[in-house]
């Protein structure tokens, strides 16, 4: 019966070859996102050049600081804190990777070609995460070494010091999670401005709101906001609960997981 291939209906292709093909097409789409190279180079520029500037600018401050100030000095966070600005670009890259496809209408072609929508979204997230993780981890290491050499005379950290390797890898992981959060919010909102406002609101506005409103509730929740993953690249952990790097990344991953669950539910149910 199966001898004459021309007459039998074409059988479904196997799962792994479909995933491979989907990953391949998602890679083509991701690498041709027009603002992609710009967003990643802006991130690299801010993180790496920022590390050098911050290290250089804080060297004098450290030497002039009181003993208590010197004890609280965190050489890793000091040079990596430009991530607070760079995360906007990674989050925006996650958003436009998806919303660009909705705006151009390409998403309909994608779903016609691969009706297994969950697999499309999974591969999209996987390709994005791998590329962004590799870039951001590389820039985190570059920023660390450049920043520590700029700190020079002030207290600086070596890559082998306790907690330092975790912090430098943690910075790359945090940025990857931010990008994924942007991507899933992009699936939920579909429109670039709305999705950008949502992710920036979560990352940049919400912490300010919680900081400005006095009271016990806001103080206790402050460490569980969607920027909780920033604990990942700190050596000194403050706050009511003193979340460590992995706990902070865990909270961050929980936000991403919630957004991902909502995105998968929506993409399977709604018209594209």
């Amino acid at each position, binding site marked *: 019966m199966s001898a004459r291939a021309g007459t039998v209906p074409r059988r479904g292709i196997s799962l792994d070859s479909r995933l491979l093909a989907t990953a391949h097409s998602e890679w083509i789409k991701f690498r041709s996102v027009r603002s992609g190279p710009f967003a990643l180079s802006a991130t690299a520029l801010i993180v790496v050049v920022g590390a050098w500037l911050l290290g250089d600018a804080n060297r004098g401050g450290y030497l002039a600081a009181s003993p208590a100030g010197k004890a609280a000095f965190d050489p890793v966070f000091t040079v990596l804190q430009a991530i607070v600005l760079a995360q906007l670009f990674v989050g*925006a890259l996650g958003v436009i990777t998806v919303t660009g496809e909705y705006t151009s209408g390409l998403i309909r072609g994608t779903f016609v070609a691969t009706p297994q929508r969950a697999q499309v979204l999974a591969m999209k997230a996987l390709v994005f995460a791998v590329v962004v993780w590799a870039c951001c981890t590389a820039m985190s290491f570059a920023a660390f070494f450049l920043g520590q050499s700029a700190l020079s005379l002030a207290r600086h950290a070596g890559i082998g010091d306790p907690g330092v390797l975790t912090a430098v890898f943690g910075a790359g992981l945090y940025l990857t999670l931010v990008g994924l959060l942007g991507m899933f919010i992009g699936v939920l909102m579909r429109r670039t401005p709305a999705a950008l406002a949502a992710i920036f609101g979560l990352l940049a506005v919400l912490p300010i709101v919680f900081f400005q409103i006095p009271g016990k509730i806001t103080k206790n929740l402050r460490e569980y906001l969607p920027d909780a993953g920033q604990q990942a690249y700190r050596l000194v952990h403050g706050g009511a609960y003193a979340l460590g790097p992995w706990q902070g990344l865990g909270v961050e991953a929980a936000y991403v997981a919630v957004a991902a669950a909502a995105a998968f539910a929506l993409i399977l149910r709604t018209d594209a």
Partner: protein
Amino acid sequence: MSQTMAAPDADSAGHAPPAAYRRAGAAMAAEWIKLRSLRSMLLTPLLGAVASIGLADVSVKNNAAGWAHLDAVQKARFDPLGLNFNFEVIGILLVGMLGALVATNEYGSGLIRTTLAATPQRGLVLVAKAVLAGLVSFALAVVIVFTAFYTGQGILSGAHAPHVSLGDHNVLAHLLGTVYYMTAAGLIGLFTGVLVRSAAGAITSMFGLLLVLPVLADKITPDAVTRHTVPYLPSNLGDEMLHHHQGLTPGPAVAGLAGWVLVLAAAAAFWLRGRDA
């Protein structure tokens, strides 16, 4: 001779080119239709108002309730006006975003090509956009700032905490300065949008410039370079309208913000005229 040449009736096609003021009026009318049909026209100001009025009132209420328990030093530091405008930055950001969307939405849909074909006087198009976006930002700013002020100070006076009224020394100047900053943010957003063209780029720039950069700059130990640059960030110039902590007086701050708007306007005009749409 020159009179007959210059007469509008000399048009060979038989119809006169419109008078300059009529063309300006038509450009304004067209821009107004596009502005009011912007989808974000409702949600963006609404979010700004919720943050700048609602959140500010929640914060003021909490502080007013705690007023009686403060010690003498904290009571001396209590700033009823500054407290009232802690969330103004979010409203300012959203007005800036609205300004950016006025431009980028048109690039996103491709409508800009029709606009520029209909009105090839590109400078005029930009002026019309700037006038309307400026007026809308100004109106929003007046409503948001004064509503926030009256509700916030009302809560403080109700709780018998220190409060200020419009007639007090410098209060009106502070409020008008904040209105000015919010209007400037709308225009900065518009011109950034014309320069960047993409919603993603323009919105990211607004968040970075107004919200994140000042926080980051604050963490650098002051030195010769930062002392002469950080106070001139638009957000810090705007902050001078309400607080005084960077060492600039309101006069130079007002001029500095106007400088940002004018430089961006010149850049936007230059690129809009020189580039393919």
